[in-house]
């Protein structure tokens, strides 16, 4: 069970995997995530479901190495198995509830930062297949770190690349590109931003004035992912919500990003120590 049937390193620190999980593949929807454990002593790590193949019974995940556990995940090879994979968790994106007809012709703007491209992909694909107009702005430090470029181009109308170093596309931040698009007179019915918490915060600040509804997908810390521990709690519109069961997607303008950013750092000293140990182990 949970065999890795395909693995590809998209960049030196980001890997894509197809994993056997038939029940999960049969019920997954855009916007949802899963939780994996790479080994018996492993942490429960939430990852977005980036694609699913209901016939093959596989799901696609894209993992970026940021610490000890993501390093372990990316060290697994084709043919290896995850100890555990559970999902789909969280609520599907709101548009999944809409009748397909309602999506035809509606205009969506996606803003993806770094790894955020991966979770944006299934959403763009879903909407594109149902005749929505989809523009995607992706940002990366440098052109080499852009992921899923071809896949994304195939499911959107316009793909706008931004790089911090100017190695491709717009030289600068995704928020600047978003401003330029609006200044050009592009109009959108709905925007979605997925990426580092700090990026989502700034996209929200940028778009707030425009009146375009904005959804963000919150990557909080999590343990169980089923509403049992409260580790993932965040404040939305002044109310405490559990990202794992009530989210992970929320109305960006209601989210207390500063609190969410702070709560992501609770285990930083332990995480750094764990990653350090792990690196020593590899040398």
């Amino acid at each position, binding site marked *: 069970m949970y065999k890795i049937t395909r693995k590809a390193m998209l960049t030196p620190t980001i890997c894509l995997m197809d994993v056997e999980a038939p*029940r*999960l593949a049969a*019920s997954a929807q855009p916007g*949802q995530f899963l939780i994996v*454990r790479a*080994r018996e*002593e*492993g*942490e*429960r790590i939430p990852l977005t479901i980036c694609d699913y193949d209901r016939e093959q019974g596989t799901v696609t995940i894209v993992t970026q190495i940021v610490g*000890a*556990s993501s390093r*372990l995940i990316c060290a697994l090879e084709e043919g290896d198995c995850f*100890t*555990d*994979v*559970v*999902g*789909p*968790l969280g609520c599907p994106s709101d548009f999944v509830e809409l009748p397909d007809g309602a999506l035809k012709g509606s205009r969506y703007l996606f803003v993806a930062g770094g790894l955020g491209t991966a979770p944006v992909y299934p959403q763009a694909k879903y909407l594109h297949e149902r005749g929505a107009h989809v523009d995607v702005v992706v940002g990366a430090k440098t052109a080499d770190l852009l992921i899923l470029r071809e896949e994304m181009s195939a499911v959107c109308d316009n793909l706008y690349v931004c790089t911090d170093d100017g190695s491709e596309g717009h030289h600068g931040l995704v928020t600047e590109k978003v401003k330029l698009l609006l200044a050009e007179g592009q109009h959108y019915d709905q925007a979605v931003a997925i990426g580092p918490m700090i990026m989502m915060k700034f996209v929200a600040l940028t778009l707030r004035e425009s009146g375009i509804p904005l959804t963000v997908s919150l990557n909080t810390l999590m*343990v*169980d992912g*089923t*509403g*049992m*521990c*409260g*580790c993932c*709690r*965040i*404040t939305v519109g002044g109310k*405490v919500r559990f990202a794992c*069961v009530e989210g992970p997607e929320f109305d960006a303008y209601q989210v207390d990003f500063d*609190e969410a950013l*702070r*709560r992501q*750092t*609770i*285990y930083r000293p*332990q*995480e750094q120590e*764990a990653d350090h140990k792990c690196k020593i182990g590899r040398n």
Partner: protein
Amino acid sequence: MQNREELKMAEKIGRVPVREQDPKVRAGNFEEVCYGYNEKEALLEASRCLNCRNPRCVQHCPVGIRIPEFIAQVRAGAFQEAARVIASDSSLPAVCGRVCPQETQCEGSCILGVKGEPVAIGKLERFVADWSRAQGGVPVEKAPANGIKVAIVGSGPSGLACASDLAKLGYDVTIFEVLHKPGGVLQYGIPEFRLPKQRVVEPEIDSVRALGVKIETNVVVGRTITIDELFDREGFKAVFVGSGAGLPRFMGIPGESLNGVFSANEFLTRSNLMRAFDPSSDTPIFVGKRVAVVGGGNVAMDAARTALRLGSQVTIVYRRTEKELPARAEEVHHALEEGIVFRMLTNPVEILGDEKGWVNALRCIQMELGEPDASGRRSPIPIKDSEFEIPVDAVIMALGTSPNPLIAKTTKGLETERHGCIVADESGATSRPGVFAGGDAVTGAATVILAMGAGRRAAAAIDAYLRP
């Protein structure tokens, strides 16, 4: 009538004390606190039971274990026979012997307790269960397979009990569990030092598997598969929902989102299920220097004693008095022995943090007891201008839990009441034909023995429902 002499003797001998780990030593490890009786101690303690003709103890055991009968077998040295007597009413004796609130149940009404100390029924039950397991357990009779599929949602005590009874009756039973390890609260909630996982919980689960029950972990019923799909696509003929009451409550006071505030569920899950106390585990846990645990139930005691073992100084903050503490008496006693400080009649009003958003104090108000409320307990009322601060760097909220709404939300026609509990009758039947429910999912957070009893009653009801 009891034999007066015998009664006097039994009262005089007094309860055989149980050997325990030294409080100073155990405060630094996760080994089981209580060693339990050996054969000699068990024989001696069993000899105190008067074998009452109208045993009051049995009336107060929620599953009616034939207590005098099993104790008489212990006294006769027939431990396996004793195990058989218990097994006819309970499927988790090694667990219940350890965690039942005996002082309010069986032992609370033992006749010897009127003047002296009650028979240590729980300790004897535990002895018998441990002894029997070491001998390979009680052989069970299993009806021939009937090929009828029944699904169980959740692998806590209610689900395990329901599954084993149905398997014995010949049903083809599959348990679906969302976590990666089965056992429910026995696995993720109750700590190792009270309920050892490898020695007690896992063998109990293995014996359920040995009956032919399949356990599929990592399945979220309601998301991975719905109850409707279990019926329509996978051919299950009945479903038992034993999904527990895992949703943690917070107080809603300012500062609860600060870094360093945790629900007891999070803290205990990291430590128990994820084994964060073990250096080889990858899951981190936050160990405060000074920790306040809010609440007075078993969950609060467990969180406090876990924090203590990880190296924290711990204060339990409870709004009523020691008398009202809902935790098992033994746990309160152990917590005090281990050096946990109790601040009674104290209620948090705010959690204070530093400029970086980390907890640095718990602001509380002094309480006094007023008139009895609807539950008959005197309700605490705040004393004006009595606020004070306890300096802490972590706060653990152990305020109780309610059922997770996921199953009710994703199952058509499944009625719930306003606290989110599934509505079910005495037999476990819900508003949806073929769907039965029991345990904490129906009653709200309760006890292992009640959950187990509900699972067994539902098994009987499911059998009656499915039998042609």
